[in-house]
């Protein structure tokens, strides 16, 4: 028996145990527990693969890809389990109840696919005063400057650090992105990420305007990145030995991290940043009256 068939065999055994006995008899209709138990069930074939293949580390063929034991087991498990899982939910009438656990915006909300804050958490934030220090004009300005400096410094550092131990700063950079993202969201009381059911007409107007501004800034960022690529190509053409058609971008892992987290951080933070800048503008013009 090939290694691939062996893995598929114990995946099927695990799924038979899970879907014919464990989920129906033990878990029942507790969908939250089912979601957690699915992690454990997925862990069983991965653990068996680790026991069998950790030392020998053979190559597994999945369609046209060569993979190691870990990714092959995980992907095969996912591909085999998904249809069984969906059929199980439907057969047991748990479809609605299961997905409800993961729904952030209310069902039927126009923001259902996009909101990353629930109605309850936004309502709680709107009346919360613990983070009011971040909602003063100076607090907002400090956050705006701080988050931009942090992103640009981290990007530049990782780009220049090279493939050395110094690139471990990537972990701190990622942590800082999430810390600043959290603080920005607290500063705008989650309004930028809220479904419209949690907001009144003024807050909806402010949120929508923030996305317009955020889109404009992101488009500037995208255009700058595309221009840099074009400039690089033109610069390469002027180098000795250039054939004028083939360009080689040599990216090290820290460089990939730098680009990924530059885009990721701005996508994550831009709506809140835009909302803060709009609030600062409004406070400034109100002060002039």
């Amino acid at each position, binding site marked *: 028996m090939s290694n691939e068939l062996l893995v598929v065999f114990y995946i099927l055994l695990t799924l038979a145990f899970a879907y014919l006995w464990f989920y129906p008899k033990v878990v029942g209709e507790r969908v939250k527990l089912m979601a957690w138990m699915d992690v454990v069930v997925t862990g069983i074939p991965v653990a068996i693969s680790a026991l069998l293949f950790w030392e020998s580390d053979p190559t597994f063929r999945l369609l046209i890809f060569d993979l190691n034991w870990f990714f092959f087991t995980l992907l095969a498990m996912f591909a085999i389990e998904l249809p069984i899982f969906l059929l199980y939910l439907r057969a047991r009438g748990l479809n609605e109840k299961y997905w409800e656990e993961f729904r952030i915006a209310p069902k039927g909300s126009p923001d259902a696919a996009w909101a990353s804050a629930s109605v309850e958490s936004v309502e709680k934030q*709107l009346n919360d005063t613990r983070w009011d220090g971040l909602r003063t004009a100076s607090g907002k300005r400090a956050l705006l400057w701080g988050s931009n400096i942090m992103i640009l410094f981290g990007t530049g550092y990782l780009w220049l650090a090279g493939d050395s131990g110094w690139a471990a700063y990537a972990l701190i950079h990622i942590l800082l992105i999430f810390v600043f993202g959290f603080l920005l969201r607290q500063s705008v009381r989650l309004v930028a990420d809220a479904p419209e059911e949690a*907001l*009144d*007409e*003024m*807050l909806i107007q402010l949120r929508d305007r923030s996305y317009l501004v955020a889109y404009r800034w992101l488009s500037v960022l995208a255009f700058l990145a595309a221009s840099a690529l074009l400039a690089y190509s033109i610069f390469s053409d002027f180098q000795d030995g250039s054939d004028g058609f083939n360009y080689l971008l040599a990216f090290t892992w820290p460089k990939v991290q730098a680009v990924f987290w530059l885009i990721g951080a701005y996508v994550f933070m831009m709506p809140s940043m835009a909302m803060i800048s709009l609030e600062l503008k*409004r406070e400034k*013009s*109100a002060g002039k*009256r």
Partner: protein
Amino acid sequence: MGRKPKSEEERVANRIEDLRTRANLSRQELAEQVGVHYQTIGYIERGEYSPSLVLALRIASVLETSIEEIFWLDEENDV
């Protein structure tokens, strides 16, 4: 026909604060009755936000008066 720049637009002035105090209502109470956040009432009272017609009618209804008694165009900036 285009819109005036925001800076040249008339401000919607109001006397919500006055009427609300007379009706013995806090911002929070008025906000709850008209279905908005209490800070939104603050923004409207300071003239930093112009409410929709629906919200203006709700405010008028709670304060038991007509819209014209509460809101008017402040033409200070009108050119």
